[in-house]
């Protein structure tokens, strides 16, 4: 296996998936590669197949056609193979109420660790460490239904983190969260990315995807419409419009400033407001 091939953690080849036999394809000939340690944002209109794709990556859904390779090996759909895969590819579901089931936070987090075959002592240690890391120790004994939306999301992330996955999938982690909790969740995600965990995140926040991701995958009607670096995707207004997304505010502003001659034509598109501010400050000088 070449170094470039070793660098690919997930490879999807011509995958088709349908929820009903003979029904429309929710995933229609999807092919893509995910680099190890990268941060990938999945974008697209509601129902475009992002969540279905994630469930295929975790082995919950088996593709009707095509192959998914994890670390260069085709996914093994035997019981043992699936348990191995699920220990390495974790999903944080969009609605925490569909994920959290235990009567207390402590028990909830221990579930995945014990299922992976960790001994009780090791699992205890791991659970305590994850709770400390994500700052959820203060509500460790609370029932999951008594948590706020942000706390539930933190616990959902802890659920997966305790399993030490190589890939963490977050399905719209900012959905139904206020700005403060979204920031908190984003900080956690950044910390995980710094530790080398491959992050796949579904989001509708184009501004965040532009500044955060290494790569954006734009999906449309079960197909991959575009896979490229964030600037290439976010400057493709036609593709964004087709997938019900808007051009990021920072790029819109940059375009207008450039067209009015305020900013130089040869400047690279900024990925954040801070970068744009720097351009404007430099122009002033």
């Amino acid at each position, binding site marked *: 296996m070449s170094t470039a091939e070793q660098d690919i953690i997930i490879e999807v080849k011509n995958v088709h998936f349908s929820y009903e036999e003979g029904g429309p394809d929710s995933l229609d000939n999807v092919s893509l590669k995910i680099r190890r340690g990268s941060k990938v944002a999945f974008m697209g209109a509601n129902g475009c197949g992002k969540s279905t794709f994630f469930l295929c990556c975790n082995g919950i859904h088996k593709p009707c056609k095509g192959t998914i390779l994890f670390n260069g090996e085709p996914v093994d759909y035997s019981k043992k193979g699936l*348990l191995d895969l699920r220990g390495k590819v974790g999903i944080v579901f969009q609605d925490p*109420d*569909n994920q959290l*089931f235990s*009567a207390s936070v402590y*028990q909830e987090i221990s579930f995945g660790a014990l*299922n992976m075959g960790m001994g009780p002592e090791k699992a205890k240690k791991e659970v305590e460490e994850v709770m400390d890391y994500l700052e959820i120790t203060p509500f460790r004994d*609370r*029932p999951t239904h008594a948590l706020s939306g942000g706390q539930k999301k933190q616990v959902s992330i802890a659920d997966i983190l305790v399993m030490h996955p190589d890939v963490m999938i977050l399905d719209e982690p900012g959905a139904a969260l206020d700005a403060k909790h979204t920031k908190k969740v984003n900080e956690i995600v950044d910390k995980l990315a710094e530790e080398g965990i491959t992050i796949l995140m579904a989001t509708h926040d184009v501004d965040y995807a532009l500044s955060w991701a290494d790569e954006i995958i734009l999906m449309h009607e079960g197909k991959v419409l575009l896979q490229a670096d964030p600037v290439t995707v976010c400057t493709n207004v036609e593709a964004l419009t087709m997938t019900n997304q808007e051009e990021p505010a920072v790029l819109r502003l940059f375009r207008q400033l450039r067209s009015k001659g305020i900013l130089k034509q040869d400047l690279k598109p900024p990925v954040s407001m801070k970068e744009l501010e720097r351009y404007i400050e430099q122009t002033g000088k």
Partner: protein
Amino acid sequence: MIVVDKLCYRSKLRYVNASEKFVFSILTLLFCVVSRSLVIAGIVFAVNSYLTVQKGKIPGLLYARLLTIPFLFLIMSTLAIIVNISKIPLDAYAIPVGSFFITGSFQSLLFGIQLIATAMASVSCLYFLSLNTTMTDFLRVLLKLRCPKILAELMLLIYRFIFVLLETASAIMVSQKSRLGNKDLRTSLDSFGKMGAGLLLRAFWRSNALYDAMESRCYDGEIRVLEEEYPVRRAEIAAIAAFELVLLGITIWRKTL
């Protein structure tokens, strides 16, 4: 249900070993039922109320309000024993109504009072357990008592889903009200039925989603979670044993009278 759940998480007796609380309340309940004594019922009711309100710091007013529910139910059902309609007046009281009497005997009056006292004392035992023990701890006690694991797992999932579905039901009802879904009795009944149907469908959908989420965390048919147990304290065991011995003594004394 939600109030009881909230209260047990706030109780100061929450961190007392759950097995101790379970043994205490069940033994005490047994003495209440077996003895059928007014003295024991009085003692048990007083002790459980003291423990729940004073030691557990459960608000007294709320505790009293919770007790009124079974109390009203008991009063209604005991009326049939205490009140008779007869042509012949009995010894306790007799109110003439035409050619009949609303009447009762001393024996049935005493029996009714004894029944209410025993039932209220028994309820106080169960309230002590449910207001001071979380569901997590309670399930652990059941498992220790060799309750089938599948039953405990089902209880855990049902417990979780009660709250999820209550939230969903409440959201549906608010949405219906905001669209005049309760403008008259007929519409209200119709809305309630539709809410029930919608809730059933969502329950199915949610259970599928939950199963997927559990599978994604390597679920293989058995729910494994870490248990945390609070230490057993000798002083508490001694106090429980002493109290139960007193109840046993009174029970024997009352039975031999």
